[in-house]
């Protein structure tokens, strides 16, 4: 059983003052050490840095995991059910690269890396996250909200055949630049589970909300929402199950629902400046997801009862419940 080594990252009396230095100091052979290295970020102030995750020797049970300390994430915020669902560092740990032009905020070139409960954005001309590892990474409860169009997308991940290896669960991706190529570009293998992808309706649509550059691999999308693109996603190489989009001619497995704040997508707010991708009670997403394979909770930890589509589970504003016994079966725990 691997030992979990947890270190704090922040500006006030933490073990590390930057994520980059945590990464450098844990850049070891974790298989030989039989360790999971966890970096817990504190919201002492915003993180503004360029992060490259590479070099550690890892496997499926010994890896690095970047997350937040208890009480430091938007997931833990006291007003999480009423906060607008978008990047807002005052709600929890936020990471940006506002300084170094033409550079991703985070590049992951290491297998089995995990990331959770974080908010990511960018400031300068490059996608927020670039994943170039062979065996991919696992991400859950992450908001990726790109303020710069960069290289035409918000996240860009690769992998290898035989996957899916990279998994995004309960994540929100927002492209805030007009007329870009996509919101997410995924090549080789990826699994998207209860994720929401959007270009705010006040902006020019992107070409394709999710895009598969090379048509390889075995992409899957379960209970996902794809909004603000001319097309939802690729019609080959991707399998969709109970997804929704404003694409009038969507791929099989994707149902057309209007991009609105009422009975279609039913988002709280689709205008760029005031964007809020929680859903209302009237949304067509409510109770229309597939239970099998869905996570037991949503992006802020609300228990999914009858599964909604996208990253947000509508609760009518009631407090989120947290009963571990309800999380075990029949839907696996995909948040971590």
């Amino acid at each position, binding site marked *: 059983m691997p030992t979990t080594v947890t270190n704090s990252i922040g500006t006030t009396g933490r073990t590390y003052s930057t994520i980059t230095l945590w990464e450098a100091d844990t850049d070891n052979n974790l298989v030989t050490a039989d360790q999971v290295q966890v970096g817990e970020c504190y919201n002492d102030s915003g993180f503004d840095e360029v992060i490259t995750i590479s070099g550690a020797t890892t496997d499926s049970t010994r890896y690095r995991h970047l997350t937040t300390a208890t009480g430091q994430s938007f997931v833990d915020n006291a007003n999480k059910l009423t906060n607008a669902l978008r990047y807002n560092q005052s709600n929890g740990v936020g990471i940006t690269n506002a300084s170094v032009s033409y550079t991703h905020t985070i*590049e992951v070139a290491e297998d089995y890396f995990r990331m959770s409960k974080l908010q990511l954005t960018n400031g300068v001309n490059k996608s927020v996250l670039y994943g170039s590892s062979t065996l991919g990474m696992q991400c859950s409860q992450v908001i990726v909200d790109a303020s710069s169009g960069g290289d035409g997308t918000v996240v860009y991940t690769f992998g290898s055949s035989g996957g899916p290896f990279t998994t995004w669960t309960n994540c929100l991706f927002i492209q805030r630049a007009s007329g870009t190529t996509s919101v997410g570009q995924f090549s080789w293998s990826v699994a998207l589970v209860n994720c929401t992808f959007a270009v705010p309706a006040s902006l020019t649509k992107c070409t394709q909300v999710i895009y598969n550059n090379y048509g390889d691999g075995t992409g899957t999308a379960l209970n996902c929402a794809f909004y603000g693109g001319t097309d939802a996603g690729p019609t080959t190489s991707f399998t969709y199950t109970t997804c929704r989009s404003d694409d009038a001619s969507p791929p099989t497995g994707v149902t057309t629902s209007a991009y609105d704040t009422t009975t279609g997508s039913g988002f709280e707010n689709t205008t760029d400046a005031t964007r809020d991708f929680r859903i209302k009670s009237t949304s067509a997403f409510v109770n229309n997801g597939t239970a099998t394979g869905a996570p037991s909770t949503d992006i802020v930890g609300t228990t999914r009862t009858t599964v909604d589509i996208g990253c947000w589970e509508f609760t009518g504003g009631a407090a989120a419940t947290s009963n571990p016994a309800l999380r075990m079966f029949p839907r696996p725990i995909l948040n971590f």
Partner: protein
Amino acid sequence: MDWLETMCRVVVWTQTRLDQKDTNYAPGDVICVVDDKHVFSDLERKSPKWRILDIPDINKEDMYALIMPERDPNTTNKALVRKRNASLDLAALPIDVKDWLTDNRVGREETKILVLTKEQALALIKPKSPKQTRFKTFS
């Protein structure tokens, strides 16, 4: 030590490791570049793996070339082949700075000021010869 005059602080990897890979930091690689207001933790100031170098009158933007990775443009995913594409030219550093960088003794001076002109600082950025060792597909 007048911290107010410092404009740029670089963290330089100094440890030689037996299992060195291109995706790890190598001696002379710069881990991060921060401004003079940055406060390092106790562990960071005393780590045997790296040293913190202060370079007055240099903006951190001038040193960003030191924190870029090297990619292989011939691969589909522009694979990262080396964690840093350039390093500090250790051979060009003053001898006392070079000795200090490789001095991992307990109790050693935690930071050092390297007084350079902008031109001298930029001359210390030494590009590495390209690796591009990964497979090449999808022309």
